[in-house]
Protein backbone atom coordinates (compact mmCIF):
# COMPACT_ATOMS: atom_id res chain seq x y z
CA UNK A 1 0.00 0.00 0.00
CA UNK A 2 1.05 3.58 -0.54
CA UNK A 3 2.62 6.07 1.83
CA UNK A 4 0.27 7.59 4.42
CA UNK A 5 -0.43 11.24 3.58
CA UNK A 6 -4.10 11.64 4.34
CA UNK A 7 -5.78 10.37 7.52
CA UNK A 8 -9.42 10.39 8.60
CA UNK A 9 -10.31 9.97 12.26
CA UNK A 10 -13.91 8.86 12.83
CA UNK A 11 -15.33 10.21 16.10
CA UNK A 12 -13.71 12.98 18.12
CA UNK A 13 -14.29 12.04 21.72
CA UNK A 14 -11.29 12.04 24.06
CA UNK A 15 -9.34 9.32 22.21
CA UNK A 16 -10.32 10.58 18.75
CA UNK A 17 -9.34 14.13 19.69
CA UNK A 18 -5.91 12.98 20.93
CA UNK A 19 -5.29 11.27 17.57
CA UNK A 20 -6.56 14.25 15.55
CA UNK A 21 -4.58 16.77 17.59
CA UNK A 22 -1.30 14.89 17.40
CA UNK A 23 -1.32 13.36 13.90
CA UNK A 24 -3.05 16.42 12.45
CA UNK A 25 -0.30 18.69 13.75
CA UNK A 26 2.30 16.93 11.56
CA UNK A 27 3.11 19.29 8.64
CA UNK A 28 3.12 16.55 6.00
CA UNK A 29 -0.23 14.99 7.00
CA UNK A 30 -3.62 16.12 5.82
CA UNK A 31 -6.10 15.40 8.63
CA UNK A 32 -9.84 14.96 8.19
CA UNK A 33 -12.41 14.21 10.87
CA UNK A 34 -15.81 12.56 10.52
CA UNK A 35 -18.11 13.69 13.34
CA UNK A 36 -21.78 13.32 14.23
CA UNK A 37 -22.79 16.96 14.96
CA UNK A 38 -22.72 19.85 12.44
CA UNK A 39 -21.69 22.30 15.19
CA UNK A 40 -18.74 20.07 16.10
CA UNK A 41 -17.54 20.02 12.47
CA UNK A 42 -17.94 23.81 12.17
CA UNK A 43 -15.97 24.45 15.39
CA UNK A 44 -13.13 22.18 14.27
CA UNK A 45 -12.97 23.75 10.79
CA UNK A 46 -12.87 27.28 12.20
CA UNK A 47 -10.55 26.77 15.17
CA UNK A 48 -8.68 23.53 14.70
CA UNK A 49 -8.05 21.20 17.63
CA UNK A 50 -5.88 22.16 20.59
CA UNK A 51 -4.01 19.65 22.77
CA UNK A 52 -2.74 20.57 26.24
CA UNK A 53 -1.33 18.54 29.12
CA UNK A 54 1.38 16.09 28.10
CA UNK A 55 1.55 17.81 24.66
CA UNK A 56 1.09 21.39 23.49
CA UNK A 57 -0.17 21.38 19.90
CA UNK A 58 -2.81 22.77 17.59
CA UNK A 59 -3.94 20.87 14.48
CA UNK A 60 -5.67 22.35 11.45
CA UNK A 61 -8.26 19.90 10.15
CA UNK A 62 -11.07 19.38 7.67
CA UNK A 63 -14.10 18.13 9.54
CA UNK A 64 -17.55 17.13 8.29
CA UNK A 65 -20.60 15.07 9.13
CA UNK A 66 -20.57 13.83 5.52
CA UNK A 67 -17.77 11.42 4.52
CA UNK A 68 -18.06 12.34 0.82
CA UNK A 69 -16.86 15.86 1.66
CA UNK A 70 -13.61 14.50 3.11
CA UNK A 71 -12.12 13.15 -0.14
CA UNK A 72 -9.89 10.13 -0.50
CA UNK A 73 -7.70 9.10 2.45
CA UNK A 74 -4.99 6.50 3.06
CA UNK A 75 -5.84 5.60 6.64
CA UNK A 76 -9.13 5.65 8.60
CA UNK A 77 -8.96 5.39 12.38
CA UNK A 78 -12.27 4.54 14.04
CA UNK A 79 -12.11 6.14 17.49
CA UNK A 80 -15.71 5.89 18.68
CA UNK A 81 -16.89 3.73 21.59
CA UNK A 82 -17.81 0.18 20.62
CA UNK A 83 -21.48 1.05 20.93
CA UNK A 84 -21.16 3.60 18.08
CA UNK A 85 -18.96 1.60 15.68
CA UNK A 86 -21.81 0.10 13.69
CA UNK A 87 -23.48 3.48 13.05
CA UNK A 88 -20.16 5.14 12.15
CA UNK A 89 -19.08 2.46 9.69
CA UNK A 90 -22.41 2.30 7.91
CA UNK A 91 -22.13 6.07 7.46
CA UNK A 92 -18.87 5.85 5.45
CA UNK A 93 -19.79 2.63 3.66
CA UNK A 94 -18.66 2.93 0.02
CA UNK A 95 -16.17 5.73 0.78
CA UNK A 96 -12.36 5.71 1.22
CA UNK A 97 -11.74 2.88 -1.29
CA UNK A 98 -7.94 3.19 -0.97
CA UNK A 99 -7.74 3.27 2.80
CA UNK A 100 -6.89 0.78 5.51
CA UNK A 101 -9.13 0.95 8.61
CA UNK A 102 -7.57 0.95 12.06
CA UNK A 103 -9.61 0.06 15.18
CA UNK A 104 -8.89 1.19 18.71
CA UNK A 105 -11.98 0.11 20.69
CA UNK A 106 -12.20 -1.60 24.04
CA UNK A 107 -12.86 -5.31 23.96
CA UNK A 108 -12.58 -7.42 20.86
CA UNK A 109 -14.49 -8.21 17.71
CA UNK A 110 -15.73 -4.84 16.45
CA UNK A 111 -13.66 -5.46 13.32
CA UNK A 112 -16.46 -7.75 12.14
CA UNK A 113 -18.78 -4.71 11.93
CA UNK A 114 -16.28 -3.02 9.63
CA UNK A 115 -15.94 -6.06 7.39
CA UNK A 116 -19.72 -6.31 7.04
CA UNK A 117 -19.68 -2.84 5.47
CA UNK A 118 -16.66 -2.95 3.18
CA UNK A 119 -13.47 -4.70 2.11
CA UNK A 120 -10.94 -2.24 3.59
CA UNK A 121 -7.85 -3.98 5.03
CA UNK A 122 -8.19 -3.85 8.83
CA UNK A 123 -5.66 -3.07 11.57
CA UNK A 124 -6.72 -4.24 15.02
CA UNK A 125 -5.74 -2.08 17.95
CA UNK A 126 -6.27 -1.15 21.56
CA UNK A 127 -5.16 1.81 23.55
CA UNK A 128 -4.14 2.62 27.09
CA UNK A 129 -3.75 6.37 26.55
CA UNK A 130 -6.28 8.70 28.11
CA UNK A 131 -7.34 12.27 27.87
CA UNK A 132 -10.06 14.58 29.05
CA UNK A 133 -12.16 16.37 26.49
CA UNK A 134 -12.40 20.01 27.55
CA UNK A 135 -14.52 21.16 24.58
CA UNK A 136 -15.22 20.28 20.94
CA UNK A 137 -11.89 21.98 20.10
CA UNK A 138 -9.72 21.14 23.11
CA UNK A 139 -8.45 17.91 24.67
CA UNK A 140 -6.11 17.48 27.64
CA UNK A 141 -3.58 14.63 27.17
CA UNK A 142 -3.42 12.84 30.53
CA UNK A 143 -1.87 9.36 30.41
CA UNK A 144 0.85 8.93 27.79
CA UNK A 145 0.53 5.14 27.79
CA UNK A 146 0.78 3.17 24.53
CA UNK A 147 -1.53 2.17 21.75
CA UNK A 148 -0.95 -1.35 20.45
CA UNK A 149 -1.73 -2.36 16.87
CA UNK A 150 -1.46 -5.48 14.78
CA UNK A 151 -2.94 -7.33 11.80
CA UNK A 152 -6.55 -8.48 11.85
CA UNK A 153 -6.80 -12.00 10.43
CA UNK A 154 -4.52 -12.83 7.50
CA UNK A 155 -3.78 -10.74 4.40
CA UNK A 156 -5.67 -9.36 2.52
CA UNK A 157 -7.98 -9.00 5.56
CA UNK A 158 -5.21 -6.73 6.91
CA UNK A 159 -2.84 -4.40 5.04
CA UNK A 160 0.27 -6.43 5.87
CA UNK A 161 2.80 -5.94 8.65
CA UNK A 162 4.98 -3.50 6.66
CA UNK A 163 2.08 -1.11 6.37
CA UNK A 164 1.24 -1.55 10.07
CA UNK A 165 4.86 -0.60 10.91
CA UNK A 166 4.28 2.55 8.84
CA UNK A 167 1.22 3.40 10.95
CA UNK A 168 3.26 2.75 14.10
CA UNK A 169 5.96 5.16 12.88
CA UNK A 170 3.37 7.79 12.00
CA UNK A 171 1.74 7.68 15.44
CA UNK A 172 5.10 7.75 17.26
CA UNK A 173 6.27 10.66 15.09
CA UNK A 174 3.15 12.60 16.16
CA UNK A 175 4.13 12.42 19.85
CA UNK A 176 1.81 9.59 20.88
CA UNK A 177 3.16 6.16 21.78
CA UNK A 178 2.46 3.15 19.57
CA UNK A 179 3.79 -0.39 19.39
CA UNK A 180 3.08 -2.75 16.50
CA UNK A 181 2.84 -6.52 17.04
CA UNK A 182 3.00 -9.21 14.40
CA UNK A 183 0.41 -11.06 16.52
CA UNK A 184 -1.71 -8.72 18.62
CA UNK A 185 -3.79 -11.45 20.20
CA UNK A 186 -1.57 -12.21 23.24
CA UNK A 187 -1.75 -8.60 24.48
CA UNK A 188 -5.32 -8.12 23.31
CA UNK A 189 -6.59 -11.21 25.17
CA UNK A 190 -4.62 -10.34 28.31
CA UNK A 191 -6.29 -6.95 28.54
CA UNK A 192 -9.66 -8.36 27.48
CA UNK A 193 -9.73 -11.03 30.19
CA UNK A 194 -8.64 -8.48 32.80
CA UNK A 195 -11.28 -5.94 31.71
CA UNK A 196 -14.01 -8.52 31.37
CA UNK A 197 -13.82 -9.53 35.03
CA UNK A 198 -12.97 -6.20 36.62
CA UNK A 199 -15.45 -4.15 34.57
CA UNK A 200 -18.49 -6.41 34.87
CA UNK A 201 -18.04 -7.25 38.55
CA UNK A 202 -17.54 -3.55 39.22
CA UNK A 203 -20.64 -2.63 37.24
CA UNK A 204 -22.88 -5.13 39.01
CA UNK A 205 -21.53 -4.50 42.52
CA UNK A 206 -21.13 -0.71 42.20
CA UNK A 207 -17.56 -1.18 43.42
CA UNK A 208 -14.55 0.68 41.97
CA UNK A 209 -11.39 -1.37 41.37
CA UNK A 210 -10.13 -1.51 44.96
CA UNK A 211 -7.80 -3.92 46.84
CA UNK A 212 -10.87 -6.06 47.74
CA UNK A 213 -10.66 -7.43 44.15
CA UNK A 214 -7.42 -9.20 45.05
CA UNK A 215 -8.49 -10.55 48.48
CA UNK A 216 -8.78 -14.34 48.60
CA UNK A 217 -8.25 -15.11 52.27
CA UNK A 218 -11.89 -15.84 53.09
CA UNK A 219 -14.28 -17.73 50.87
CA UNK A 220 -16.53 -14.69 50.59
CA UNK A 221 -13.69 -12.39 49.48
CA UNK A 222 -14.33 -10.97 46.04
CA UNK A 223 -10.87 -11.94 44.77
CA UNK A 224 -11.95 -15.59 44.55
CA UNK A 225 -14.57 -14.74 41.96
CA UNK A 226 -12.20 -12.41 40.07
CA UNK A 227 -9.53 -15.12 39.97
CA UNK A 228 -11.92 -17.91 38.92
CA UNK A 229 -13.49 -15.77 36.21
CA UNK A 230 -10.08 -14.82 34.86
CA UNK A 231 -8.98 -18.47 34.87
CA UNK A 232 -12.06 -19.28 32.79
CA UNK A 233 -11.04 -16.56 30.31
CA UNK A 234 -7.46 -17.85 30.12
CA UNK A 235 -8.72 -21.36 29.31
CA UNK A 236 -10.81 -19.94 26.46
CA UNK A 237 -7.78 -18.00 25.12
CA UNK A 238 -5.69 -21.19 25.23
CA UNK A 239 -8.40 -23.09 23.34
CA UNK A 240 -8.02 -20.46 20.61
CA UNK A 241 -4.27 -21.07 20.53
CA UNK A 242 -3.43 -17.75 22.22
CA UNK A 243 -0.57 -17.60 24.74
CA UNK A 244 -1.15 -14.52 26.88
CA UNK A 245 1.51 -11.83 27.19
CA UNK A 246 0.58 -11.17 30.86
CA UNK A 247 -1.36 -13.08 33.49
CA UNK A 248 -4.63 -11.13 34.03
CA UNK A 249 -4.75 -12.10 37.74
CA UNK A 250 -1.23 -10.69 38.23
CA UNK A 251 -2.32 -7.53 36.37
CA UNK A 252 -5.26 -7.25 38.79
CA UNK A 253 -3.15 -7.71 41.91
CA UNK A 254 -0.55 -5.25 40.66
CA UNK A 255 -3.14 -2.59 39.77
CA UNK A 256 -4.85 -2.63 43.17
CA UNK A 257 -1.55 -2.63 45.07
CA UNK A 258 -0.69 0.79 43.59
CA UNK A 259 -1.47 3.92 45.57
CA UNK A 260 -4.02 6.36 44.27
CA UNK A 261 -3.08 9.06 41.80
CA UNK A 262 -3.08 11.64 44.62
CA UNK A 263 -0.35 10.16 46.76
CA UNK A 264 -1.59 8.60 49.97
CA UNK A 265 -5.16 7.65 49.06
CA UNK A 266 -6.21 4.12 48.23
CA UNK A 267 -6.29 3.06 44.60
CA UNK A 268 -9.97 3.02 43.61
CA UNK A 269 -10.28 3.25 39.84
CA UNK A 270 -13.83 3.76 38.59
CA UNK A 271 -13.85 1.57 35.50
CA UNK A 272 -15.51 2.80 32.32
CA UNK A 273 -18.31 0.27 32.71
CA UNK A 274 -19.06 1.34 36.28
CA UNK A 275 -19.07 4.93 35.10
CA UNK A 276 -21.55 3.96 32.35
CA UNK A 277 -23.78 2.15 34.86
CA UNK A 278 -23.74 5.09 37.26
CA UNK A 279 -24.86 7.33 34.39
CA UNK A 280 -27.33 4.72 33.13
CA UNK A 281 -25.72 4.68 29.70
CA UNK A 282 -25.38 1.45 27.74
CA UNK A 283 -22.11 -0.34 28.45
CA UNK A 284 -19.57 -1.98 26.12
CA UNK A 285 -20.27 -5.40 27.65
CA UNK A 286 -21.22 -6.93 24.28
CA UNK A 287 -17.65 -6.38 23.03
CA UNK A 288 -15.86 -7.15 26.28
CA UNK A 289 -17.46 -10.06 28.15
CA UNK A 290 -19.77 -10.82 25.22
CA UNK A 291 -16.79 -11.42 22.94
CA UNK A 292 -15.36 -13.96 25.40
CA UNK A 293 -18.72 -15.75 25.60
CA UNK A 294 -18.84 -15.95 21.80
CA UNK A 295 -15.23 -17.15 21.68
CA UNK A 296 -16.09 -19.90 24.19
CA UNK A 297 -19.07 -21.01 22.10
CA UNK A 298 -16.86 -21.12 18.99
CA UNK A 299 -14.65 -23.77 20.58
CA UNK A 300 -17.41 -25.52 22.54
CA UNK A 301 -16.09 -24.54 25.98
CA UNK A 302 -18.38 -23.71 28.90
CA UNK A 303 -18.10 -20.16 30.23
CA UNK A 304 -20.49 -19.98 33.20
CA UNK A 305 -18.84 -16.99 34.91
CA UNK A 306 -18.63 -14.93 31.73
CA UNK A 307 -22.18 -15.83 30.73
CA UNK A 308 -23.46 -14.96 34.20
CA UNK A 309 -21.72 -11.60 34.40
CA UNK A 310 -22.65 -10.80 30.80
CA UNK A 311 -26.32 -11.51 31.51
CA UNK A 312 -26.29 -9.63 34.82
CA UNK A 313 -24.96 -6.48 33.14
CA UNK A 314 -27.58 -6.82 30.39
CA UNK A 315 -30.25 -7.21 33.10
CA UNK A 316 -28.94 -4.13 34.87
CA UNK A 317 -29.17 -2.16 31.61
CA UNK A 318 -32.76 -3.39 31.27
CA UNK A 319 -33.60 -2.16 34.79
CA UNK A 320 -33.11 1.46 33.69
CA UNK A 321 -36.06 1.13 31.34
CA UNK A 322 -38.50 -0.02 34.05
CA UNK A 323 -40.85 2.68 35.27
CA UNK A 324 -41.60 2.72 39.00
Amino acid at each position, binding site marked *: MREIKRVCVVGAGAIGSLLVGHIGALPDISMTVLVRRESHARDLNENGLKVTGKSDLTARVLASTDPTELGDVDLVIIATKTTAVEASVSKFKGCFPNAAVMMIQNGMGCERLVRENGSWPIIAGLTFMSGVRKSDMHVDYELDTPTWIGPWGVEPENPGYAYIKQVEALINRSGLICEAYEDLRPVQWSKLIFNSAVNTIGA*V*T*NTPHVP*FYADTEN*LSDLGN*LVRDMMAEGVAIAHAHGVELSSDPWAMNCKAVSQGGSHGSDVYAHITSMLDDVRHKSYTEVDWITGSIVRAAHDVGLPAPYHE*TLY*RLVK*GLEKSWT*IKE
Partner: protein
Amino acid sequence: MKVCIIGCGAIGSLFAAHLGRLDDVEVWAYDPYEAHVDAINKNGLRLTGESDFTVQINARSNAADIPPCELGIIASKTLHTRAAMESVAHIFVDGAVCSVQNGVGSEEIIAEYVPRVIMGTTFPAGHITEPGVCNQDTKGLTTIGPFDGKPATQAECDRLAEALSRGGHETESIADPRGAMWTKVIFNCASNGLAALTRLPHGINCEQVRDLMSAVAQEGVAVAHALGVALEKDPEAMIDYGKEVAYLHKPSMLQDVEAKRITEIDSINGGVAAMGEGLGVPCPLNRAISDMVKALEFSWTLEE
Protein backbone atom coordinates in the same frame (compact mmCIF):
# COMPACT_ATOMS: atom_id res chain seq x y z
CA MET B 1 -48.00 -22.54 78.11
CA LYS B 2 -45.61 -19.65 77.70
CA VAL B 3 -44.28 -18.77 74.22
CA CYS B 4 -41.71 -16.07 73.49
CA ILE B 5 -41.43 -14.43 70.08
CA ILE B 6 -37.82 -13.43 69.39
CA GLY B 7 -37.73 -10.51 66.98
CA CYS B 8 -41.18 -8.97 66.76
CA GLY B 9 -40.96 -7.31 63.33
CA ALA B 10 -43.57 -8.02 60.67
CA ILE B 11 -43.30 -11.83 60.70
CA GLY B 12 -42.82 -12.04 64.47
CA SER B 13 -45.89 -9.82 64.98
CA LEU B 14 -48.05 -12.15 62.86
CA PHE B 15 -47.06 -15.13 65.03
CA ALA B 16 -47.39 -13.18 68.30
CA ALA B 17 -50.81 -11.77 67.47
CA HIS B 18 -52.38 -15.07 66.42
CA LEU B 19 -51.06 -16.87 69.52
CA GLY B 20 -52.21 -13.90 71.62
CA ARG B 21 -55.84 -14.72 70.83
CA LEU B 22 -55.65 -17.93 72.88
CA ASP B 23 -56.56 -18.05 76.59
CA ASP B 24 -54.21 -20.95 77.31
CA VAL B 25 -51.09 -19.33 75.83
CA GLU B 26 -49.10 -16.55 77.54
CA VAL B 27 -47.27 -14.62 74.81
CA TRP B 28 -44.04 -12.76 75.38
CA ALA B 29 -42.17 -10.84 72.70
CA TYR B 30 -38.55 -9.68 72.65
CA ASP B 31 -37.53 -6.89 70.28
CA PRO B 32 -34.92 -4.14 70.62
CA TYR B 33 -37.18 -1.64 68.80
CA GLU B 34 -38.49 0.28 71.84
CA ALA B 35 -41.20 2.37 70.15
CA HIS B 36 -42.86 -0.84 68.87
CA VAL B 37 -42.51 -2.55 72.27
CA ASP B 38 -43.97 0.47 74.12
CA ALA B 39 -46.90 0.77 71.70
CA ILE B 40 -47.71 -2.95 72.06
CA ASN B 41 -47.68 -2.74 75.88
CA LYS B 42 -49.82 0.42 75.86
CA ASN B 43 -52.36 -0.30 73.11
CA GLY B 44 -51.95 -4.00 72.36
CA LEU B 45 -50.61 -5.53 69.17
CA ARG B 46 -52.89 -4.79 66.23
CA LEU B 47 -53.09 -6.63 62.91
CA THR B 48 -54.67 -5.01 59.85
CA GLY B 49 -55.10 -6.14 56.24
CA GLU B 50 -55.83 -9.84 55.78
CA SER B 51 -56.30 -10.09 59.56
CA ASP B 52 -58.06 -7.47 61.68
CA PHE B 53 -57.85 -7.72 65.47
CA THR B 54 -55.93 -6.44 68.49
CA VAL B 55 -54.50 -8.57 71.32
CA GLN B 56 -52.72 -7.92 74.60
CA ILE B 57 -49.27 -9.52 74.80
CA ASN B 58 -46.16 -8.83 76.90
CA ALA B 59 -43.46 -7.11 74.88
CA ARG B 60 -39.99 -6.36 76.27
CA SER B 61 -36.87 -4.74 74.80
CA ASN B 62 -34.78 -6.18 77.63
CA ALA B 63 -34.71 -9.98 77.49
CA ALA B 64 -33.85 -10.16 81.23
CA ASP B 65 -37.45 -9.10 81.93
CA ILE B 66 -38.90 -12.20 80.25
CA PRO B 67 -39.68 -15.36 82.33
CA PRO B 68 -38.68 -18.90 81.31
CA CYS B 69 -40.79 -20.18 78.38
CA GLU B 70 -41.47 -23.66 77.01
CA LEU B 71 -41.38 -22.55 73.40
CA GLY B 72 -39.80 -19.79 71.34
CA ILE B 73 -40.28 -18.58 67.78
CA ILE B 74 -37.38 -16.62 66.28
CA ALA B 75 -38.40 -14.33 63.44
CA SER B 76 -35.52 -11.85 63.37
CA LYS B 77 -33.56 -11.10 60.21
CA THR B 78 -30.95 -13.85 59.91
CA LEU B 79 -28.01 -11.50 60.35
CA HIS B 80 -29.22 -10.87 63.93
CA THR B 81 -29.73 -14.55 64.87
CA ARG B 82 -26.62 -14.93 67.00
CA ALA B 83 -27.02 -11.63 68.86
CA ALA B 84 -30.69 -12.39 69.53
CA MET B 85 -29.99 -15.90 70.80
CA GLU B 86 -27.26 -14.62 73.11
CA SER B 87 -29.84 -12.29 74.68
CA VAL B 88 -32.66 -14.83 75.09
CA ALA B 89 -30.85 -18.12 75.76
CA HIS B 90 -31.68 -17.93 79.50
CA ILE B 91 -35.42 -17.98 78.68
CA PHE B 92 -35.17 -21.46 77.15
CA VAL B 93 -33.02 -23.37 79.63
CA ASP B 94 -35.45 -26.25 79.14
CA GLY B 95 -37.27 -25.03 76.05
CA ALA B 96 -37.43 -25.48 72.29
CA VAL B 97 -36.94 -22.66 69.81
CA CYS B 98 -38.44 -22.66 66.32
CA SER B 99 -36.90 -20.65 63.47
CA VAL B 100 -39.30 -19.17 60.93
CA GLN B 101 -36.50 -17.15 59.37
CA ASN B 102 -35.39 -17.09 55.76
CA GLY B 103 -32.69 -19.33 54.41
CA VAL B 104 -30.37 -21.93 55.83
CA GLY B 105 -28.01 -21.94 58.77
CA SER B 106 -30.10 -20.35 61.55
CA GLU B 107 -31.02 -23.64 63.21
CA GLU B 108 -27.33 -24.49 63.63
CA ILE B 109 -26.76 -21.19 65.44
CA ILE B 110 -29.88 -21.56 67.61
CA ALA B 111 -28.71 -25.06 68.58
CA GLU B 112 -25.64 -23.54 70.22
CA TYR B 113 -27.87 -21.75 72.74
CA VAL B 114 -30.92 -23.93 73.53
CA PRO B 115 -31.52 -27.63 74.20
CA ARG B 116 -34.01 -28.32 71.40
CA VAL B 117 -34.63 -26.77 67.98
CA ILE B 118 -37.55 -26.70 65.53
CA MET B 119 -37.08 -25.94 61.82
CA GLY B 120 -39.86 -23.83 60.34
CA THR B 121 -40.77 -22.42 56.95
CA THR B 122 -43.39 -19.71 56.66
CA PHE B 123 -45.15 -18.06 53.74
CA PRO B 124 -47.39 -15.35 55.27
CA ALA B 125 -46.07 -11.81 54.74
CA GLY B 126 -46.68 -8.46 56.34
CA HIS B 127 -45.15 -5.10 57.13
CA ILE B 128 -45.10 -2.81 60.17
CA THR B 129 -47.19 0.27 59.36
CA GLU B 130 -46.59 2.10 62.66
CA PRO B 131 -45.33 1.08 66.11
CA GLY B 132 -47.70 -1.56 67.47
CA VAL B 133 -49.43 -2.17 64.14
CA CYS B 134 -48.65 -4.82 61.51
CA ASN B 135 -50.45 -5.19 58.22
CA GLN B 136 -50.88 -8.82 57.15
CA ASP B 137 -50.25 -8.71 53.40
CA THR B 138 -50.82 -12.38 52.68
CA LYS B 139 -51.89 -15.49 54.59
CA GLY B 140 -50.29 -18.84 54.00
CA LEU B 141 -49.03 -22.07 55.45
CA THR B 142 -46.27 -22.50 58.01
CA THR B 143 -44.55 -25.89 58.22
CA ILE B 144 -42.56 -26.96 61.28
CA GLY B 145 -40.77 -30.08 62.47
CA PRO B 146 -37.81 -31.26 64.58
CA PHE B 147 -34.40 -29.94 63.44
CA ASP B 148 -32.28 -33.06 62.92
CA GLY B 149 -29.11 -31.47 64.33
CA LYS B 150 -30.67 -30.98 67.80
CA PRO B 151 -34.29 -32.05 67.56
CA ALA B 152 -37.28 -30.91 69.55
CA THR B 153 -39.78 -33.70 70.20
CA GLN B 154 -42.57 -34.24 67.70
CA ALA B 155 -45.00 -33.58 70.59
CA GLU B 156 -43.52 -30.11 71.08
CA CYS B 157 -43.88 -29.39 67.37
CA ASP B 158 -47.48 -30.69 67.39
CA ARG B 159 -48.32 -28.54 70.39
CA LEU B 160 -46.94 -25.36 68.77
CA ALA B 161 -48.63 -26.11 65.42
CA GLU B 162 -51.94 -26.84 67.13
CA ALA B 163 -51.83 -23.55 69.05
CA LEU B 164 -50.89 -21.49 66.00
CA SER B 165 -53.60 -23.07 63.85
CA ARG B 166 -56.21 -22.58 66.58
CA GLY B 167 -55.15 -18.92 66.74
CA GLY B 168 -55.78 -18.59 62.99
CA HIS B 169 -52.21 -18.99 61.71
CA GLU B 170 -52.37 -22.21 59.72
CA THR B 171 -49.44 -24.44 60.72
CA GLU B 172 -48.51 -28.04 59.97
CA SER B 173 -46.24 -30.20 62.14
CA ILE B 174 -44.35 -32.85 60.18
CA ALA B 175 -41.52 -35.31 60.89
CA ASP B 176 -39.10 -33.97 58.27
CA PRO B 177 -39.37 -30.20 57.76
CA ARG B 178 -36.37 -30.01 55.43
CA GLY B 179 -38.27 -30.45 52.17
CA ALA B 180 -40.36 -27.33 52.77
CA MET B 181 -37.36 -25.33 53.93
CA TRP B 182 -35.14 -26.29 50.98
CA THR B 183 -37.94 -25.67 48.50
CA LYS B 184 -38.31 -22.12 49.76
CA VAL B 185 -34.60 -21.35 50.03
CA ILE B 186 -33.89 -22.64 46.51
CA PHE B 187 -36.68 -20.44 45.16
CA ASN B 188 -35.24 -17.50 47.10
CA CYS B 189 -31.72 -18.12 45.77
CA ALA B 190 -33.05 -17.80 42.23
CA SER B 191 -35.48 -14.94 42.81
CA ASN B 192 -33.74 -12.82 45.46
CA GLY B 193 -30.03 -13.19 44.75
CA LEU B 194 -30.27 -12.42 41.03
CA ALA B 195 -32.80 -9.59 41.46
CA ALA B 196 -30.46 -7.92 43.94
CA LEU B 197 -27.84 -7.75 41.17
CA THR B 198 -29.98 -6.98 38.10
CA ARG B 199 -32.32 -4.67 40.14
CA LEU B 200 -35.25 -6.15 38.18
CA PRO B 201 -38.69 -7.17 39.54
CA HIS B 202 -39.32 -10.93 39.57
CA GLY B 203 -41.37 -11.20 36.37
CA ILE B 204 -39.02 -9.09 34.27
CA ASN B 205 -36.05 -10.95 35.72
CA CYS B 206 -37.74 -14.13 34.47
CA GLU B 207 -37.79 -12.64 30.96
CA GLN B 208 -34.17 -11.44 31.10
CA VAL B 209 -32.24 -14.10 33.02
CA ARG B 210 -34.57 -17.11 33.36
CA ASP B 211 -31.79 -19.54 32.39
CA LEU B 212 -29.49 -18.12 35.08
CA MET B 213 -32.32 -18.54 37.61
CA SER B 214 -32.50 -22.20 36.62
CA ALA B 215 -28.76 -22.67 36.89
CA VAL B 216 -28.78 -21.11 40.37
CA ALA B 217 -31.77 -23.19 41.46
CA GLN B 218 -30.27 -26.42 40.12
CA GLU B 219 -27.15 -25.96 42.25
CA GLY B 220 -29.47 -25.80 45.28
CA VAL B 221 -31.37 -28.88 44.11
CA ALA B 222 -28.06 -30.77 43.94
CA VAL B 223 -27.25 -29.75 47.54
CA ALA B 224 -30.72 -30.83 48.72
CA HIS B 225 -30.26 -34.20 47.01
CA ALA B 226 -26.84 -34.65 48.60
CA LEU B 227 -28.52 -34.08 51.98
CA GLY B 228 -31.17 -36.66 51.14
CA VAL B 229 -33.92 -34.06 51.20
CA ALA B 230 -37.01 -34.58 49.05
CA LEU B 231 -38.21 -31.20 47.81
CA GLU B 232 -41.85 -30.38 48.37
CA LYS B 233 -42.31 -28.61 45.04
CA ASP B 234 -40.34 -28.07 41.85
CA PRO B 235 -38.51 -24.74 42.28
CA GLU B 236 -38.71 -24.16 38.51
CA ALA B 237 -42.51 -24.29 38.64
CA MET B 238 -42.47 -21.89 41.60
CA ILE B 239 -40.31 -19.42 39.65
CA ASP B 240 -42.74 -19.52 36.71
CA TYR B 241 -45.77 -19.29 39.00
CA GLY B 242 -44.18 -16.24 40.65
CA LYS B 243 -43.92 -14.61 37.24
CA GLU B 244 -47.69 -15.09 36.73
CA VAL B 245 -48.85 -13.81 40.13
CA ALA B 246 -46.09 -11.36 41.12
CA TYR B 247 -44.73 -9.97 37.84
CA LEU B 248 -43.76 -6.56 39.21
CA HIS B 249 -42.95 -7.75 42.74
CA LYS B 250 -39.52 -6.69 43.96
CA PRO B 251 -38.05 -9.56 46.00
CA SER B 252 -37.15 -8.52 49.55
CA MET B 253 -33.43 -8.59 48.86
CA LEU B 254 -33.88 -6.10 46.02
CA GLN B 255 -35.87 -3.91 48.42
CA ASP B 256 -32.96 -4.17 50.87
CA VAL B 257 -30.47 -3.22 48.15
CA GLU B 258 -32.52 -0.22 47.05
CA ALA B 259 -32.69 0.96 50.68
CA LYS B 260 -28.97 0.12 51.17
CA ARG B 261 -29.82 -2.26 54.05
CA ILE B 262 -27.57 -5.24 54.78
CA THR B 263 -29.24 -8.23 53.10
CA GLU B 264 -29.84 -11.84 54.17
CA ILE B 265 -27.49 -13.09 51.43
CA ASP B 266 -25.40 -15.12 53.93
CA SER B 267 -28.44 -17.31 54.66
CA ILE B 268 -29.74 -17.52 51.10
CA ASN B 269 -27.20 -17.89 48.25
CA GLY B 270 -24.23 -17.74 50.62
CA GLY B 271 -25.81 -20.28 53.00
CA VAL B 272 -26.61 -22.75 50.23
CA ALA B 273 -23.12 -22.36 48.73
CA ALA B 274 -21.48 -22.96 52.12
CA MET B 275 -23.58 -26.08 52.75
CA GLY B 276 -22.80 -27.38 49.26
CA GLU B 277 -19.09 -26.72 49.65
CA GLY B 278 -19.17 -28.60 52.98
CA LEU B 279 -20.75 -31.59 51.23
CA GLY B 280 -18.41 -31.51 48.23
CA VAL B 281 -21.18 -30.17 45.96
CA PRO B 282 -19.73 -27.01 44.40
CA CYS B 283 -22.13 -24.10 43.94
CA PRO B 284 -20.06 -21.64 41.88
CA LEU B 285 -22.98 -19.46 40.80
CA ASN B 286 -24.51 -19.14 44.26
CA ARG B 287 -21.03 -18.42 45.62
CA ALA B 288 -20.47 -15.77 42.91
CA ILE B 289 -23.84 -14.13 43.58
CA SER B 290 -23.20 -14.15 47.31
CA ASP B 291 -19.73 -12.62 46.86
CA MET B 292 -21.14 -9.93 44.60
CA VAL B 293 -24.02 -8.99 46.90
CA LYS B 294 -21.47 -8.73 49.74
CA ALA B 295 -19.38 -6.47 47.47
CA LEU B 296 -22.47 -4.39 46.75
CA GLU B 297 -23.04 -3.95 50.51
CA PHE B 298 -19.35 -3.03 50.82
CA SER B 299 -19.74 -0.42 48.06
CA TRP B 300 -22.16 1.56 50.27
CA THR B 301 -19.29 2.17 52.69
CA LEU B 302 -17.24 3.77 49.90
CA GLU B 303 -19.78 6.40 48.90
CA GLU B 304 -19.83 9.69 50.74
